[in-house]
């Protein structure tokens, strides 16, 4: 028997790191994402873009514009139009014929010259030259721009001639000459552009790099049955998780670096290919030192997101389950990066403490060279604390017996960890049934050693909304609202809103329920609540608008006031008095109440019903706030979302929330009219 003394913590971390890295680097999937994708992707995109642009430009140049001139021959003008042989002249009989030719696309542009132009020129009058073009035809618009340039040059010549004739100095027609110069060097401009784009790219790439290793090292280990042997070893959990964390961070960092390198290389090649035109035209230069600073920022970014992904992946029992869990997390993590791109958001005392946002802003600060060192330090410390917290959670959850052997236990399911004692017996029964169904489907490795399968009375498995499905629906709705709904609403507010609610929001929900064959009553909480819930909803609805209208909007006004023009425009659109009130109430109160409740308090909330109450409320409120697509309305809509979530969870039904929502909106609409906010 050899004397066994457990290795030191650092030794275990290092040991696990080496082993996991070896294994990860032998995984083709990880290598693909980490190395091949960035190396191939950007150059391909870059080359493709360059070729496309080049081909377009070539095509533009090769084409000789066809210009129809109506009216007497104006030699100087004709010469300007046909300069360098870029255009060919046609002489249609009259304006009518010319327009016909333009419509038939026989000519790209029509120039109408007044018949007495020569006299007008001589008398020092203005000659009105009319240019007819077709805005829907690219060639026509391009020709218009070019010919206008030529005419401008001609005007300058004619003016100079007139002044000379009158014996005036050339400065006569230019009482003020404006010159401008940006004190930002081309390098600064390049840094500015990169500072906007790169943080987002870095976060996305780091997330992508961390995704598979985080799953492989946690849920993958459970699925392959290797975890038991590892957990029986005489080493602390945190040390195991530390080693795994270092591997995921390393892979994520390298993925980020390779992506960055690949982007840099592509940009450099593209800039080279354009023969320095980039510098001359846009005054933009790639600041290589800024790119180097990004490298520095990658490490904390990778560390933070790796820890988060490890913690979440530790909750899953199988690879597939982990993928389902991490996909929404991936999207949520991308959010702070997107936020950091917004103008006006800078690294400050508060933002330096917001996880995710702070590292993205740190990256931005490093690139633009405008980083406050103290805030940078705060960011790093805060990020380290968050990462450590995430790791501790991961280590704790990792060997939670409920997760380890959940497939065999009676109360399975990764969310068993979060199961709360619910007042809502109905919902609890659903959760149990769902967990049992999940244990059956997700067991995988656990299936063959289920000696201790002990189950309560078997229940029929109930199919429920999983977070991945909810995320898909939500994203589809958001995309539809942004791409279709918003433009429609700007044309016709009421019609646009009706289409948005009943088609763009309700349709994805219906598609999900239909194709996933979800039971409507369960997936959407479409069931009859207790009578008292109705009463509560009415009461809350009557009071809610006041709370939102006074408290929340007061705070909003104080910290992030909506620009006055925007507010007025919104009021004009919503509270116009020329429409029948009934129509407005239907479009602005009843429709959103029904459709938005089914989406948010139905599908979205249903998918999160195993989270603790506060997390359900918080996530639903944030998503509901984001859904309204306005930072100025975020606070009020999120507050509304929080109340609506509470109502739905407490009553176990989506219906009281609908009533509340309708009452709340109806009061706002009516009040807005009465107060004459519509102008």
């Amino acid at each position, binding site marked *: 028997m050899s004397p066994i003394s457990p290795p030191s913590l650092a030794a275990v971390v290092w*040991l696990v790191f080496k082993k996991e890295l070896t294994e990860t680097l032998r995984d083709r999937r990880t290598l693909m994402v980490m190395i091949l994708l960035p190396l191939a992707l950007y150059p391909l995109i870059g080359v493709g873009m360059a070729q496309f642009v080049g081909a377009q430009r070539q095509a533009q140049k090769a084409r000789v514009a066809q210009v129809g001139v109506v009216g007497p021959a104006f030699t100087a003008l004709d010469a300007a139009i046909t300069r360098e042989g870029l255009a060919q002249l046609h002489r249609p009989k009259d304006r009518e014929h010319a327009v016909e030719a333009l419509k038939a696309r026989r000519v790209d542009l029509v120039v109408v010259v007044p018949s007495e132009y020569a006299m007008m020129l001589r008398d020092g009058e203005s000659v009105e030259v009319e240019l007819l073009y077709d805005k829907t035809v690219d060639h026509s618009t391009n020709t218009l721009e070019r010919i206008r340039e030529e005419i401008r040059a001609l005007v300058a010549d004619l003016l100079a001639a007139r002044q000379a004739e009158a014996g005036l100095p050339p400065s006569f027609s230019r009482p003020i000459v404006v010159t401008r110069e940006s004190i930002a060097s081309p390098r600064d401009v390049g840094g500015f552009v990169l500072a906007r784009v790169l943080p987002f790219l870095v976060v996305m790439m780091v997330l992508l790099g961390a995704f598979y290793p985080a799953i492989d090292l946690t849920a993958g280990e459970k699925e392959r049955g290797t975890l*038991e042997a590892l957990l029986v070893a*005489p080493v602390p959990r945190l040390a195991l998780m530390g080693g795994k964390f270092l591997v995921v961070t390393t892979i994520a960092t390298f993925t980020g670096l390779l992506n960055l390198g690949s982007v840099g290389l592509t940009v450099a090649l593209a800039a080279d290919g354009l023969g320095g035109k980039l510098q001359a035209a846009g005054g933009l230069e790639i600041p290589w030192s800024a790119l180097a600073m990004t490298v520095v920022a990658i490490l904390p970014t990778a560390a933070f997101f790796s820890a988060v992904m490890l913690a979440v992946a530790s909750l899953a029992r199988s690879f597939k389950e982990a993928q389902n869990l991490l996909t929404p997390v991936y999207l949520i993590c991308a959010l702070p990066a997107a936020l950091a791109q917004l103008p006006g958001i800078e690294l400050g005392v508060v933002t330096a403490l917001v996880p995710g946002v702070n590292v993205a802003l740190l990256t931005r600060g490093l690139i633009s060279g405008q980083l406050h060192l103290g805030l940078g330090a705060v960011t790093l410390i805060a990020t380290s604390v968050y990462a450590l917290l995430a790791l501790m959670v991961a280590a704790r959850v990792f060997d939670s017996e409920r997760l380890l052997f959940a497939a065999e236990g009676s109360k399975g399911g990764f969310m068993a960890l979060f199961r709360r004692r619910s007042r809502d017996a109905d919902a609890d029964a659903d959760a149990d049934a769902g967990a049992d169904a999940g244990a059956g489907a997700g067991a995988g490795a656990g299936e063959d050693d289920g000696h*201790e*399968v002990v189950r309560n009375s078997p229940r029929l498995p109930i199919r429920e909304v999983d977070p991945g499905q909810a995320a898909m629906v939500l994203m589809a709705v958001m995309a539809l609202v942004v791409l279709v709904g918003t433009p429609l609403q700007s044309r016709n507010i009421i019609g646009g809103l009706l289409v948005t609610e009943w088609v763009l929001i309700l349709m994805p929900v219906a598609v999900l329920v239909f194709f996933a064959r979800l039971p409507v009553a369960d997936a959407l909480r479409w069931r009859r609540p207790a009578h008292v819930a109705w009463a509560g909803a009415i009461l809350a609805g009557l009071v809610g608008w006041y709370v939102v209208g006074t408290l929340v909007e007061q705070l909003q006004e104080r910290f992030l006031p909506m620009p006055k023009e925007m507010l007025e425009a919104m009021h004009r659109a919503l509270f116009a008095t020329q429409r029948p009130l009934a129509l407005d109430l239907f479009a602005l109160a009843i429709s959103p109440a029904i459709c938005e409740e089914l989406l948010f308090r139905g599908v979205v909330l249903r998918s999160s019903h195993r989270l603790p109450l506060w997390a359900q409320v918080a996530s639903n409120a944030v998503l509901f706030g984001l859904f309204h697509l306005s930072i100025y309305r975020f606070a009020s809509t999120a507050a509304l979302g929080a109340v609506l979530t509470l109502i739905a969870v407490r009553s176990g039904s989506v219906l009281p929330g609908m009533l509340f929502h309708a009452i709340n909106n109806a009061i706002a609409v009516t009040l807005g009219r009465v107060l004459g906010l519509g102008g």
Partner: protein
Amino acid sequence: MTIEIRGLTKRFGSVLAVDGVDFEVRRGEVYGLIGPNGAGKTTTMRLLVGLLRPDAGVARIGGVDSTRDPLAARAQLGFHGGSVGLYPRLRAREALIYQARLYGLDAAEAARRAEEVAAELGAYDLLDRRCEALSAGQKQRVGLARASVHDPPVLVLDEPTAGLDVLASRFVADYVRKARDRQRAVLFSTHYMTEAELLCDRIGLLHRGRLVAEGAPAAVKERFGCETLEEVFLGLAEGGEGGEDRTERAL
């Protein structure tokens, strides 16, 4: 006493998976935990090695409580089971060395031990193959090698022969005997009766989470009035009142 289990109890929801189990395993002894599927064998072992926390009772390894001081208890332990997997993308040698180093062996010693245990288990030729390329029997050999690469005083083997053919099973049996000869304490679970009869010094019969009989295989057979352990086992596995009656009588 190297393994000591007293009043061990584990509840999953409303079901008692392990119900007040007592037994011990001495140095140089092979103790077999026998019982039908769902009897509580695996749960008992997981409680012993500290993968699960007991609701009541204690499990000690070399006198150390595996709940109170899990690291010290685990340090004396080699664990393997039919359901325990190997890292697919590691070579057998790397897997063995990794395990040895987790138990505190230095690099040179770990490398030496990896070759030594692999040779003992007839897995020497497998050392440089990836674990994912091994057959079920080969995996089990490497798994057993991994359990003993740090030469622990206590071996806990959860159905190590499940799903193995006769030839592979014999390797496992040889391995268990050698361990006994070297004064290791071996806790072993199986539902192959012949194997248990041949291999174990003492057996404990688990039924519905309770230890219903214990002793040398011959003594247990006698007490249940059966010709073979298989009959005893069948009586229990058929369950119901018949099994209970026999148990009552035997006790």
